[in-house]
């Protein structure tokens, strides 16, 4: 009877449609984020993360309507990320029914934005997303740097230092993505995750690289993650959420079953 570790499916959406596809056999519209969110919630997902990758600002109105529709039908926490740059962006998403927003690039370019956001809306709804890449050489102690622009631009910022700073500014949670592992299905960067998790008091969501259910277990037990985020292993029906939860529980992890 302890706090459960969380499984968080992530939906990447462009103009209100889920991209990367979701392959549920019996789903009518594989691109509808509302239907997919409801499906994941019914399956026992502990939260939903909605990542908006819509490029143009004008089309973001669609995203707001999508978030409203999800929030009207799905009663588990909903995090919205992607393009959150101003306090108004945050207010808009919270008013639409998001419970948390995830701030990524805007935090790197203007760290005080995180402080302002946490002061205005409370740390509980401010997630800082960090994209980290290993920069230490083989044989050296692990060192990771924050990257922007999908892992293409180095910032020179040390990942562990950055996490500490963001928490001191009021981040309530850290979404940590390994750019080395993202999309590889070779498992989380456990050393990175552990280094960050052990350096801050707030929960860490591990992301990037999940290929099988043992990766989720390792993320929690070795990487010290409080939650695990995954997209493709659930979207493509390789594993179901109940299956993942049962597997993790069997390895001794407290789950909400």
């Amino acid at each position, binding site marked *: *009877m*302890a*706090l*459960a*570790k*969380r499984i968080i499916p992530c939906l990447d959406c462009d103009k209100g449609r889920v991209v990367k596809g979701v392959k549920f056999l019996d789903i009518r519209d594989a691109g509808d984020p509302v239907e997919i969110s409801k499906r994941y*919630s019914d399956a026992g997902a*502990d939260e939903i993360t909605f990542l908006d990758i819509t490029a143009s600002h004008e089309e973001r109105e669609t995203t707001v309507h999508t978030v409203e529709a999800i*929030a*009207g*039908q799905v*009663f*588990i*926490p909903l995090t919205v990320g992607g393009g959150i740059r101003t306090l108004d962006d945050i207010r808009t998403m*919270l*008013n*639409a*029914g*998001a*419970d948390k927003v995830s701030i990524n690039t805007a935090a790197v370019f203007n760290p005080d934005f995180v402080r302002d956001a946490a002061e205005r*809306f*409370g*740390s*509980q*709804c401010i997630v800082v997303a960090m994209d980290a890449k290993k920069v230490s050489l083989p044989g050296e102690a692990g060192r990771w740097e924050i990257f922007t622009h999908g892992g293409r631009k180095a910032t020179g910022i040390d990942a562990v230092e950055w996490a*500490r700073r963001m*928490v*001191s500014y*009021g981040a*309530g*949670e850290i979404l940590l993505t390994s750019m080395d592992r993202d999309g590889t299905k070779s498992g989380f960067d456990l050393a990175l995750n552990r280094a960050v998790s*052990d*350096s*801050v*008091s*707030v*929960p860490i969501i591990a992301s990037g690289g999940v290929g099988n259910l043992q990766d989720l277990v390792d993320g929690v037990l070795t990487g010290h993650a*409080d*939650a695990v985020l995954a997209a493709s292993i659930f979207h493509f029906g390789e594993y179901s959420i109940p299956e993942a939860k049962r597997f993790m529980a069997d390895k001794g992890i407290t789950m*909400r079953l």
Partner: protein
Amino acid sequence: MNKVAVIDYGMGNLHSVAKALEYVGRNVSVNVTSDAATILQADHVIFPGVGAIRDCMAEIRRLGIDEIVAEVACRKPLLAICVGMQALMESSEENGGVECLGLVKGQVRFFGNVDAGAGSPVNASNSGLSDEQGNSLKVPHMGWNCVKQTDQHPLWQGIEDNTRFYFVHSYYVALCAGESASGLTRYGVEFTAALNKGNIFAVQFHPEKSQHGGLQLLRNFLAWDGV
């Protein structure tokens, strides 16, 4: 028509709770409002809250919500959620000490080691809080945890004992003797996850985000006539 008022004092996201009430309620009209008359005319009142207690209490007092809540508690069912529950207590340790409404006797305490992180506890990498095995625990307490029901309150109807609800908070309610907890949760310490006092039912977790168990609790609240 079951008229429900969700008290709005400008702190955070009240849409989730309004949407959940609309979802579970039959013949329900939900008003998110700070208007005294609307709140006092409602059949059921929700007192939510997120964010820092100092800011919440300042707005509660500025808008006269303190008096409205006290009056509602005498007359009709009131469900307080998260910081709304904390605001009912006598005082909170948060923000260096804040006086609250005092409708229920007890204090609001920090989960971790207050001495280690006085003023801004989230800075400390080690919260000072640990589980029974000695593992260090993160603060805030964020996620799904079990609530042990300690009474047969109507709001628990149809909800299994030890159901998991969604929590997100760094401070918890410690009740004085003589007050009644309805639910207990353990996170380093055992704390009051739910309490009742007359027409008041208060929960530290977010029923509007707690899927089946949470929606059932809201359904029960809408069906409850108070004492």
